[in-house]
């Protein structure tokens, strides 16, 4: 069949109509989102219409609503700024090892054992960020410790970065198989699934070896059960409170004593 000759007049009229239609819709949407809705929002935002329109197109920075800011006593002064991250990245484990031999190893033995499991945690293989946060908090007073705080009072952040690079590079404590108990079903559930009814996230979502969660969350795998239980109780009673935004206090307060004991045992078990 021969292709019919295109009707150029009709085509042009159609093109004009469609183009006009598209432009009309674009203008209508632009007007609604940049003019109408911002002006309507003004009734709540406490700003005038002109400011609202300017902000809708990205001009002008709003000031927060008037509210007196409370006096701040941060539960931890550690912040994961670029400065802190660069400092940790520059941590030198060779210098750290020398420092550890001088100061740390009497209690925190490089094979992962410690002099007193209840008060001295196994720190080998922990993330440098987790260790750095606790060292800072112990030195700066947010997690005061009779032994640690005076011992590290004169250490600099750079020295901390070196020491944590060293301990972070060591293998984790290998739980002694003879001492292991089978974790209870309740502990397994709490650690791997959490408890939605109590808004308890799974412990493993932050504390398993490859978990996400807050950067300072330590891996608990292989930690001494007596130490884990003691820290959970300290959080629950708020005698330890250097967790930012109460993330651990909130969790620990919801746990029963038997759950604490079970969870501590769970993390000592090899997974």
């Amino acid at each position, binding site marked *: 069949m021969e292709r019919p000759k295109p009707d150029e007049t009709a085509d042009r009229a159609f093109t004009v109509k469609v183009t006009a239609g598209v432009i009309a819709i674009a203008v209508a949407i632009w007007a609604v989102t940049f003019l109408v809705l911002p002006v309507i929002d003004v009734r709540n935002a406490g700003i005038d219409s002109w400011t609202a329109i300017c902000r809708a*197109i990205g001009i002008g920075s709003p000031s927060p*609503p008037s*509210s007196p800011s*409370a006096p701040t006593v941060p539960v931890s002064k550690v912040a994961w700024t670029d400065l802190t991250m660069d400092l940790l990245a520059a941590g030198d484990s060779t210098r750290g090892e020398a420092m550890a031999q001088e100061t740390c190893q009497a209690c925190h033995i490089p094979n992962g054992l410690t002099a007193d499991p209840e008060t001295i945690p196994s720190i080998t293989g922990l993330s440098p960020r987790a260790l750095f946060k606790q060292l800072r908090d112990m030195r700066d007073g947010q997690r005061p410790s009779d032994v640690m705080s005076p011992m590290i009072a004169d250490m600099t952040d750079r020295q901390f970065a070196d020491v944590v690079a060293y301990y972070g590079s060591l293998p984790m404590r290998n739980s002694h198989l003879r001492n292991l108990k089978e974790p209870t079903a309740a502990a397994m559930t709490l650690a791997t699934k959490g408890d939605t009814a109590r808004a308890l996230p799974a412990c493993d979502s932050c504390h398993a070896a490859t978990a996400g969660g807050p950067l300072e969350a330590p891996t608990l795998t292989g930690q001494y059960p007596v130490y884990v239980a003691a820290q959970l109780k300290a959080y629950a009673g708020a005698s330890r409170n250097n967790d930012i935004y109460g993330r651990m206090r909130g969790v620990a307060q919801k746990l029963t004593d038997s759950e604490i004991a079970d969870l501590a045992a769970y993390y000592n078990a090899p997974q």
Partner: protein
Amino acid sequence: MAVDEISTVRSERIWTYAMVAVAAVMLVAIVHAGIAQHFGTPSNSIETVDPNTLHLAGEFVSENLGTRVGLDGKITTRVVTTQFAFAPDCVVVPQHMQVTLRAASPDVLHGLMIMGTNVNTMVVPGYVSQVHTVFDKTGEMLMPCHEFCGLGHSQMVARVRVVPLEDFQPDEQGRVSCADR
């Protein structure tokens, strides 16, 4: 099958009308949500905040969170969404009053919503999310995180307690918290 010019043009026209109708319906829906249901655009409150130092100083320090009646009488509820909890995990708000909810995240992308209200926003690290709302019914409602934020996401939920205005008694600093009640 051959298609003649007339039927091609007719087909194009039908589809053009259909697409215009779809765009128009969407536009009407947006306008309706914005005007009648007050689903605000975020654009009038684009505010940036440093997520790394959120806990050190400024509006979102722990002491400043929760519901507070400002000196100007405006009610503001501030929450921090963090892995994997809301801080605070329970807030009190009055019934039939304008409440401004302000949220910030120190770590990753979170979100929050309160069922049956217009409160539904993402909380993006680096920005303050702000929603204005009025709670019509008293009672306790759940405010879950609705943006996947990590392995503990499904347990991340806060409670919102809506109380009659006469039971909404701020302390001398203008605060009202779940613990006082």
